[in-house]
């Protein structure tokens, strides 16, 4: 590997960001600008908004989902090098990953049983 393969990616990041920023800038130049207090209030289908977003409360389940996501994401990251090196790892690799997946599946079953994956109580 050389860093050459990252040159196009760097260019692509720069180009697409520039495109987005330039479009927004051009639009802000050529578009009209007539803000009114009513226009700048949050849209709630015509109802006058009551209170800001800091009054919002969300079920803790969303947090649990994000937590589960991290754990399975880390598992995914471990699975990729294993999959690529699988030919060289032989049976040992299979058993090791089997143990790893089994431990995580135990956790998964626990979460399921405790109702962590339920969305309607």
């Amino acid at each position, binding site marked *: 590997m050389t860093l050459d393969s990252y040159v196009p990616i760097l260019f692509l990041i720069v180009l*697409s960001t520039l495109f987005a920023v330039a479009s927004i800038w051009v639009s802000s130049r050529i578009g009209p600008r007539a803000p009114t207090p009513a226009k700048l209030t949050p849209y709630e289908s015509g109802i006058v908004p009551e209170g800001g977003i800091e009054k919002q409360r969300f079920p803790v389940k969303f947090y649990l989902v994000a937590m589960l996501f991290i754990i399975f994401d880390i598992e995914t990251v471990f699975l990729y090098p294993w999959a*690529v090196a699988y030919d060289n790892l032989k049976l040992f690799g299979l058993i090791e990953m089997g143990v790893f997946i089994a431990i995580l599946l135990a956790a998964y079953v626990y979460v399921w049983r405790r109702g962590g994956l339920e*969305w309607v109580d």
Partner: protein
Amino acid sequence: MIDWIKQLPGNVIDFIGPEIIIATAKVVLVFGVLLVTTLLVIWFERRVIADMQARVGPNRWGPFGLFQTLADGIKLFFKEDFRPAAADRWTFVIAPVMAMVPAFLAFAVVPLGDHVVIAGHRVDLVMSDLNIGILYFLAVGSLGVYGVVLAGWASGSKYPLIGSIRSTAQMISYEIALGLSLVPIALVAGSLSTVDIVAAQAGTYDNIVLFGRDLNFLEGIIPHWFIVQQWPAFLIFLVAGIAETNRAPFDLPEAETELVAGYHTEYSGIRFAMFFLGEYVHVVAISAMAATLFFGGWHGWNPAFPAAIDWLRWIVPIFWFTIKTVAFVYLFVWLRATLPRLRYDRLMWVGWKRLIPGALVWIVVTAVLNSDPEEVPTSARLWVMAVVFAILLAWVWRGDPRLTALEPWRKKEVTRGTA
């Protein structure tokens, strides 16, 4: 003096280096093509859905209404671009950019064709062949969440916030399934590079033996695409991919009946266009990835052309790649016209209770099937397969009592049937 001018292009090339010039050309070309493709895909979607609903669809601007999206885009430039008073200034600006850029980045590892030789330089028709291509695709895809989460919060409005929390939970749930569904591909191909994965899908299946019978007549007909042996992974990838793009039937983020327009309710004008652009580029990216990883990428019928029309040799693969990608884009549109939106608890049910365990089981099955025959005897493999299929059958047969219990109508139907 004149000599100096004549040598100038060569000198400039020598100074900057051909690699940089090739890289720039690739990036500009792919970016431009993607922009045009987005315009065409939006037109395509509107026409196809109109056709499915026995309407005409856009047909005024240009032939078959081809320029309709362009006109819409230009219109959006002239719209007022305002920021709600309650919005967070900088985050509100960053969010549309964060929604658009990652979608484009995913294209960097998609091989569009084989290679071309221009003036002695070998130019691979892929922006950059990264060693960790699939991981890059997933990592860049995971950045797309930021556009949604920031837009919802920065708007300072209730519906966008609810929409963004919901769609973030949806996107991260399906991201796992998406990531796990590609592990078997990496295992079979032995590489994470998309170029290697496409190369591994060259040729056709020979020596097809089914239950000890040699199926000679199939030889050389079935292409060696991963869809043949990895179709369960493909199904998981497809469902998760559709959910990642927030498209129907997983378009809960934009459930207009309950959330106005979801996380981008407060966005208007060109900033709204950025979200729209990001979504469609994402659709094209997932389609291109599905074609690349499961349907042989640019492989297809490509005979040896006579020397006079030798240039067809690198046009034809691009053609095949485009056909496959367009087929998947059509599938996206078709699904949108056909399927109703999922209820949120069912969406989470599919993602967490079916796709993720299914993907994990499939990884284990693929690993066992691809193990060394000397180390893992055939009988052991058969046992593993038997156990897995028994579990799967029991699982599918059982269905989900939680869902059926919620639907009295279904139970009535059952009782009527037995009575």
